[in-house]
């Protein structure tokens, strides 16, 4: 036991006292949240070059109204009222050179050349019967629905996310609706009054603080932010596995190839050596976890997101620590076994692929689980041992009222799996660590495990 501690202390110091550790600690969260970070920082980077739109208006009057709307946009919407900075491109509408009521597709194709060459941003073709509606019976529906006969086509190379598509759609519809209300003798103000929306707000449940007796809770839930915390727990667990446990592969490979293992095994048993490495690694992982969690909570409070910190933070952290420890032990044992079975990093990478896929698998289905944390699928998925740490944490963070037996059962199953993994790894480690020359194949590993 004492020897396990000696080895664990050495492992811990060797891992933590390196530049690589500090760099990884800082870089990992940046890498994982890179997409989000980039979006936040760069979303104001919009291309503001003028967009020339060629319009072929078969309906008759729409072009002029659109022209007015475009001018309105160019003067007011395209520029920030406060700073005067341009935040959207201007739309310059002009009539298409094609001067016919019924162009052939070939003529349209020729007009589109201007789009391809960049002379115009888009070619908009407004159908003659955009204002007409008719009843249509579609298959499988009882009542007939009203549909517009004509339509508008935008020919461009821009993506469907482009602001112009949205702008045109909204302007044309509001214009035509206005015409229809007027034709039906419904003044716009009356219509607006009718359409005033009723706010429906999602909130967290109210409760009573056991100490102060005050009513607490009821905070508003913003769209998307209530999956932030569950998502963060998953990423956090993955980061800790990567920074804390993955280095074991290199460490074992080094001990094997540098013959350090031979010397160590003259002083400790393989069980003590592996045990020490695992204990040291758990220590490193817990350090990383503390730094990240502490940083996240402090950062959230400083940035004013204090209200988003869940009220059951203590319980969540407790479960997280348990699941994280089990996850790194499970993965760590596998990494040690692979490191001992191989003779260089290349061989190890090949064997590691399936392991990484299994580790990452929960992240492939996380959205399904977080959307419906209490569905049968979610319950079952979170009880599959390799997925349990991440998925059970996800569910605990997104559905506070989870029945206790579920996470408890999860812990038991993962614990059994972890013990099994450590046992198998021990068998493989004992034989593999002293083997020189070619790496071992899967068949060898199975043989070592069974024979001992």
């Amino acid at each position: 036991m004492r020897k396990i501690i000696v080895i664990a202390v050495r492992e811990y110091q060797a891992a933590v006292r390196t530049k690589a550790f500090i760099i990884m600690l800082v870089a990992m969260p940046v890498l994982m949240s890179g997409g989000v970070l980039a979006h936040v920082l760069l979303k104001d980077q919009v291309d503001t070059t003028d967009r020339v739109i060629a319009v072929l208006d078969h309906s008759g009057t729409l072009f002029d109204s659109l022209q007015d709307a475009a001018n309105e946009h160019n003067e007011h919407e395209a520029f920030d009222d406060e700073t005067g900075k341009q935040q959207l491109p201007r739309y310059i509408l002009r009539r298409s050179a094609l001067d016919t009521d019924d162009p052939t597709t070939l003529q349209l194709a020729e007009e589109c050349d201007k789009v391809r060459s960049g002379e115009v941003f888009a070619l908009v073709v407004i159908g003659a019967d955009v204002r007409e509606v008719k009843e249509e019976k579609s298959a499988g529906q009882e009542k007939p629905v009203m549909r517009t006969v004509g339509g508008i086509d935008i020919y461009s190379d821009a993506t469907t996310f482009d602001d112009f598509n949205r702008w045109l759609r909204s302007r044309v519809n509001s214009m035509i609706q206005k015409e229809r209300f007027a034709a039906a003798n419904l003044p716009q103000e009356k219509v607006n009054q009718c359409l005033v929306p009723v706010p429906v707000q999602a909130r967290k449940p109210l409760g009573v603080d056991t100490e102060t007796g005050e009513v607490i809770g009821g905070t508003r839930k913003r769209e998307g932010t209530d999956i932030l915390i569950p998502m963060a727990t998953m990423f956090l667990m993955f980061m800790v596995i990567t920074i804390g446990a993955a280095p074991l592969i290199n460490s074992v490979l080094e001990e094997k190839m540098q013959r350090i293992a031979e010397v160590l095994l003259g002083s400790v048993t393989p069980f003590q050596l592996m045990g020490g490495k695992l204990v040291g690694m758990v220590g490193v992982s817990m350090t990383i976890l503390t730094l990240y969690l502490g940083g996240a909570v402090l950062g959230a409070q400083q940035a004013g997101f204090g209200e988003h910190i869940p009220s059951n933070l203590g319980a969540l952290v407790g479960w997280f620590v348990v699941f994280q420890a089990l996850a790194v032990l499970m993965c760590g044992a596998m990494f040690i076994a692979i490191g001992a079975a191989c003779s260089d990093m290349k061989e190890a990478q090949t064997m590691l692929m399936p392991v990484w896929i299994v580790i990452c698998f929960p992240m492939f289905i996380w959205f399904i689980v977080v959307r419906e944390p209490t569905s049968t699928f979610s319950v079952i998925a979170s009880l599959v041992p390799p997925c349990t740490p991440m998925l059970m944490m996800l569910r605990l963070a997104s559905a506070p009222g989870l029945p206790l037996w579920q996470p408890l059962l999860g812990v038991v199953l993962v614990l059994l799996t972890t013990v099994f993994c450590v046992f198998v790894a021990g068998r493989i480690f004992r034989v593999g660590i002293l083997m020189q020359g070619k790496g071992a194949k899967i068949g060898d590993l199975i043989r070592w495990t069974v024979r001992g």
Partner: protein
Amino acid sequence: MNTIEIDKVTKSFGDVVAVDDLSLAVPHGSVYGFIGPNGSGKTTTLRMIMNILYPNSGDIRVFGEELHGAATDRIGYLPEERGLYTKMKVRDILRFYAELKGRRDFKHKVGDWLERMELSEWANKKVETLSKGMAQKVQFIAAVIAEPELIILDEPFTGLDPVNAEVLKDAILELKRDGTTVIFSTHDMNVAEKMCDYVFMIFKGHKVLDDTLTSIQKTYGADTLRVSLDRDAGDLTTIAGVQRVNDYGAFKEVRMGTGADTQKILAALMERAVVQRFEVACPSLHDIFVRIAGPDALEPRP
């Protein structure tokens, strides 16, 4: 009392028999030299003594007990190749190995050893900055710092220049004076001759020599001549009674056949050149090694 007793031990790796029916007894406080060609089973035998490998059959008793799965703190081990964590500092790694063996009173011991091995200024440097010879010395200190009763050194002199080899040799002899049993394997026959009380040679998994150097040499008898001539005297094997010649440059080692007459050989040499040195001797360990394991080896001695 014997520190090590190996009793009819066999070890195979798959179809390859690395050690075959080996028996050996290493007396307490002796310096035992293990010699043998590469791949002969030396390292395997050492690893079995270290309890890193288990024999397929036979017993090994160290300090009178069979060690089953128990690593022992009473044995120090220096592996053939570097066994040090490259990123650790010298002082830290020595402290680590001492702690592993259960020694807590290591601080001044580390300093003492570093001074004795002339490594004091490297105490706070990382192992990866050391030269091969210096790393070897650090490895040696790591093996002995916990004052084990038995030390196993696998080719400790490899890569050491004469000065460092001398330092190491003195350290080993001092350990012997303190009552430590030392086993070391080596390819350097000179060192083995000078330092070992007993020599054990293994060849193709079998023991072929196991005795004091003197006894071994007596078995062969004085069948070797060491001669120096003032000029190249051609092929000496043409002289009657000369079986083989080993040319060392400065002198030649001549192996005589059975029944050869030393005086007749001397006369023949005098006809060819001026004889500057003529010594009747027992074969050197080097020569014995080559006789047993060389390309035209005769039947290995039992």
